């Protein structure tokens, strides 16, 4: 479990609404309003995308919207920085291959 239920300094996390969204078609739960990347992290997802040239996996790196490594296809739009994009119920999140949702060659 990656969520910190109680923190010695910050205490308990305030109650947030749990919402459903999908990652590559699979239903995942997350807290509404938290970054998509946080919800994915809590669900144990490490890989956000595969790079264009070398097809290497990438995930969260800076977590504050600067490095752009955590981008994914969200509701059909590629290159969405998941670490600074708030989760909404029903979002369709897809692993990004190069610059789109599917590999151009059909393989990773």
């Amino acid at each position: 479990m990656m969520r910190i239920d109680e923190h010695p300094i910050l205490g308990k996390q305030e109650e947030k609404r749990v919402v459903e969204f999908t990652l590559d078609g699979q239903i995942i739960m997350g807290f509404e309003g938290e970054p998509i990347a946080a919800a994915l992290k809590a669900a144990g997802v490490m890989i956000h995308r595969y790079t264009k040239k070398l097809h290497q996996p990438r995930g969260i790196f800076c977590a504050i919207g600067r490095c752009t490594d955590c981008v994914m296809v969200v509701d059909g739009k590629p290159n969405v920085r998941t670490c600074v994009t708030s989760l909404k119920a029903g979002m369709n999140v897809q692993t990004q291959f190069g610059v789109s949702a599917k590999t151009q060659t059909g393989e990773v």
Partner: protein
Amino acid sequence: MERYDLIVAGAGPAGLSAAIEAAKRGLRVIVFDENEKPGGQLFKQIHKFFGSKEDKAKIRGFKIGKDLLEEANKCGVEVVLNAIVIGLYLDKEVTVKIGDGIQHFKGDTLIVATGASENMVTFDGWTLPGVIGAGAAQTMMNLHHLKPGNRILMLGSGNVGLVVSFQLMQAGCEVVALVDAAPKVGGYGVHASKIARCGVPFYLSHTIIKAEGEQFVNGVIIGEVDSSWEMISGTQKHFDVDTICLAVGLSPMSQLLKMAGCHMKDTPGGYIPECDEKGATSVPGIFVAGDVSGIEEASSAMIEGRISGIAAAEYLGFIDKEELKKSIEKQEKALISLREGMFAPENRGRSIKKTEEGIDVSINLLKKGYIEETEIERFPGFTKCKGVHPVIECTQNIPCNPCQEACVKKCIKIGEKITSLPAIDETKECIGCGMCVASCSGQAIFLVNEEYEQGYAAITLPYEFLPLPEVGSQGKALDRSGKEICAAKIIDVKTKKAFDYTHLITMKVPADMSRKARFFVNSRRCEDE
């Protein structure tokens, strides 16, 4: 076009402080910040700050952020969040992405306080998921309540690496090693000691050779480097980790200033604008404050912010030269005192052998992260006397003095110079209130009673982990290196509002351990391991 007396880019400690001072002097001020929350990195700082009382020492970073925002609001500063300053143009015009559009603003003055971005290092596998920046770790833990990983290796022994390692443990992660290519710990010794006593091993003169894993990190190999940074063969060590955290310094985020045509200069600390002591750049009316003009601590950023805010007020004629001088005199003095001591900017890269008091520094602290028992005795905070008394293991000249104020009985003396080592006045009586223990941002103060019971000593230490041991808990005492040295029993747990989430636990240990035992783990945790 909407025009303000002052536009501030960045609502971190520098930007908010600047806005407050300017608004107090009558300027119409607006602050833009790209983040959802104001305070810059302050909101991720859950540790107590160093410095002097006037500059918010011993207050936790996120609280400072909240206080600054409140004060800014009270002064009438408009703080616009989720607002990205995307460009800085001629005639001091800024364009800001707000919501789903671009808005244009002009400022008669501008203060750029955009802070810093993290430096990175490369090694085989550094792009794998699971390799993250220290800032990312802080963001996940302290903003989003998520553990960045379960088993973590930290690269970097500067204050960021040390502080974040401690925070990782607070969040419930295991820090398996702290690694730095430099031959000595870069950050404050007290921060290092805090994590060393929890059992985190330090690997100085080591660097990461490879992050292992096909799809994400599942291990790491480190190796030792010699004095010319060449790898020494046969020194490879492997750790099973799921996360590698990089804390290898910060660089000023000065892009907006370069775009604005400010004269820039390249320094070992990054690419920064040329500016005077009040933060004025080469473009009249554009000022800077905080990390964007050179990396320092948040406390310095706040003071720099105040100075540039006041300077902007003078630039626009809201105050005269006389008042400017008067207003910034005190700030400049405070800034100078923060820039003194062993970690002063001019000491960067220098090897310091003695403290200002002429005491040999602890070599072990620099190499392993903790002070040897044989070294601690020579420092003025270490005393041994009858009854309960403080033992201060603060051995480097750093700008910090809350402990002096904390003791109502005046047992602790630092004096005028904020970087002096705290000394114990043995003529004054300690009442064991523990305020000094809780006030020490470096968690370097302990209360020791060598004669608690026949054959036993009592040691009170600051504790910021969960679960909190209970009175009667049996466990082990750890020494400064994190090694289990004896059985220990908790005989007191103090929790007070004034302690601000630092709990004081008192453990009973055999009398001969009174100078060794500095941390406690309860038996349950011992068994887990």
